[in-house]
């Protein structure tokens, strides 16, 4: 009996000692998806000369985060407090009043060695705690990249995913009348800044970055016949990839950058090949008499998704990287093509042609869970942000009124036009700049 009583006492003691036990349980299974209100005052600067950098960096960060659709940078005119010293905790109450949930404080200072030092802190306004604090040194001309890196760090801390603001977009800049269209290879920052042309006066198509963002593969008509060409961004040199008798097109790098998958046309039949850039040896992967094209590697490099009309209409297929186990995955309405495997691996984006319209859609690699993200008159050619969260694509305007680049979140929200100098098409998103 005494033993039983002691066991009871021990059990009671355990129950009482259990830390943080609350009887009331609340299940919240509905939400209200809203962008995060965040305040980003101009970065503090010790001198008037640095103040311009402080304002510019804060402005770029505000613009980056707003563009993502996941943040709502508050208008600086609404601030009732000013940041004078970033090493002192802010007066959180003053930021709560303007509904800010996040606060970014930063400072810029020119160093004696001529470099620019940028510090920033991300604060949880309601939790009254610092979430992040980082410091960068750079050449003053690089201030814009630093601003993008600050945006990336904030984005990652809040969303759990890497950012994509310190990236570049390579695209086809189009100009001239419809019958004499000039299509040149161009490049710009993700926010549309620093645009420049990489090629002149000849037709190029389907540019793709390699994993280090230093090399671009594209199809070029420079020799009269369409050929896959490599362009080195550092040296500015270009070279024809492989010596094939017929046209090659639709190139894409493997995740490790050592292979290029592309399409080789021969006698009216197109098939997928892979070329090893180290040995320059090519391997044929498909042997079907139908058109097999638009290959794209899975992020682990073990599989390739491609489009084929072997089943009677253009559909999406997946095979192993050695060409084995080819099987169809798209069975939805209409035709489906230009598949691109997400860098995250969870989705494949593609162009869907149904009901007389072209749209951008995503599905899981097994073909399930298809969702249409955009449906314009002619939306096509998706490319993934390096974090697999956002897509860019070409939107052709009805009536021959040119083409534009648009972006959309993988949820289908935040559809918006990407700023480009003039008409633009065929965007390719770079990896994060190293």
């Amino acid at each position, binding site marked *: 009996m005494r033993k039983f009583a002691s066991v009871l006492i021990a059990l009671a003691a355990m129950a009482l000692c259990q830390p943080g036990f609350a009887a009331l*349980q609340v299940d*919240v*299974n509905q939400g*209200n998806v809203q962008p995060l209100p965040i305040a980003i005052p101009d970065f503090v600067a010790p001198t008037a000369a640095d103040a311009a950098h402080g304002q510019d960096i804060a402005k770029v960060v505000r613009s980056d985060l707003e563009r993502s659709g996941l943040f709502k940078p508050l208008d600086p005119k609404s601030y009732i407090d000013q940041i004078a010293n970033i090493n002192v905790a802010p007066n959180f109450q003053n930021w709560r009043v303007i509904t800010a949930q996040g606060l970014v404080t930063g400072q810029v200072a020119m160093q004696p060695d001529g470099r620019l030092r940028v510090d920033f802190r991300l604060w949880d306004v309601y939790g009254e705690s610092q*979430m992040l604090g980082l410091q960068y040194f750079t050449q003053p001309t690089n201030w814009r990249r630093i601003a993008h890196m600050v945006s990336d760090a904030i984005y990652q801390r809040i*969303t*759990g995913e890497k950012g994509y603001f310190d990236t570049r977009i390579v695209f086809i800049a189009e100009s001239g009348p419809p019958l004499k269209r000039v299509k040149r290879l161009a490049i710009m920052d993700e926010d549309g800044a620093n645009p420049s042309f990489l090629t002149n006066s000849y037709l190029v198509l389907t540019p793709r970055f390699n994993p280090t963002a230093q090399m671009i593969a594209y199809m070029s008509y420079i020799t009269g016949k369409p050929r896959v060409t490599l362009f080195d961004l550092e040296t500015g040199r270009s070279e024809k990839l492989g010596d094939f008798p017929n046209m090659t097109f639709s190139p894409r790098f493997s995740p490790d950058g050592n292979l290029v998958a592309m399409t080789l046309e021969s006698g009216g039949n197109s098939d997928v090949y892979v070329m090893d850039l180290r040995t320059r040896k090519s391997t044929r992967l498909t042997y079907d008499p139908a058109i097999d094209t638009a290959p794209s590697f899975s992020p682990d490099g073990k599989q390739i998704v491609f489009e084929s009309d072997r089943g009677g209409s253009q559909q999406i297929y997946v095979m192993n990287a050695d060409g084995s186990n080819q099987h169809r995955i798209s069975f939805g309405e209409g035709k489906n093509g230009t598949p691109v495997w997400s860098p995250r691996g969870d989705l494949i984006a593609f162009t869907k042609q149904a009901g007389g319209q072209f749209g951008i859609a995503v599905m899981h690699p097994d073909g399930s869970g298809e969702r249409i993200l955009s449906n314009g008159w002619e939306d096509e050619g998706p490319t993934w942000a390096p974090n697999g969260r956002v897509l860019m694509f070409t939107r052709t305007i009805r009536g021959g009124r040119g083409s534009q680049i648009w972006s959309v979140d993988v949820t289908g929200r935040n559809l918006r036009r990407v700023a480009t100098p003039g008409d633009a098409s065929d965007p390719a998103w770079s990896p994060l700049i190293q």
Partner: protein
Amino acid sequence: MRNRPTAERAAPRLGVVFSVVLHVGLAVALFVSFSKKIDLPLDNPPIVPVDLVTVSDQTNIAPMQKPVENTPPPTPQEAVPTPMPEPAPPKFELAPDVKPTPKPKPEKPKEAEKFDINDIQKLLAKKTPSKTASRNVQGVGAQTAMTADLASVLMSEIYRCWSPPTGTPHPERLIVKYEVFLNRDGTVAQPPQLAPDTAAAVVSDPYMAAAAGAARRAIYTCSPYKLPADRYAQWRNFIVNFDPRQLEQ
């Protein structure tokens, strides 16, 4: 004998005619339809209208559209709304004994047009009590009172402040459990604490860290919570599960 074959020939012809007429009729019936307004059933999310309920041990919400009660109708004078927004019929102008109600409610013009003082009892019989007139909420629990349990009240407050993570791979795993500590005035007394299993996942998974951040912001931004002071002992601390599995991603 000659007639028989004729009659036999006529019978199939009639059959063909009937068949054609019926088929045409069927085709016409399929093409022609009469428009009819169909009220689609509304989803009834388990949101408790907290403004109308008191907090009790269990959620017990009476349906909003009650059947008409057999209480004696009030006198016409109490129910006649004044002033009328549009010129009333002559009969109405002649009613000298009309007394204004303590809180006159402006009636909609449509109702005013239909108003007929001679038929006022019929009108009143049609009217449902004003507190339930504009809503159609299904009952919950015993459906005899207007009470919600504390968990329902808290849920209805917190969900408005929760911006759940979207677009993440496998969102079904991002369930965040926090213990919340409140002051008597409904403000957050101390930083909410992650449950041990959530805390472990937050360390290893950046998506979980982001989900925990969103949940924490929801807890803070919803503060102060409007809860019955006499039951503070029950809500001074509670566990809240943020579960995104039912959300559209």
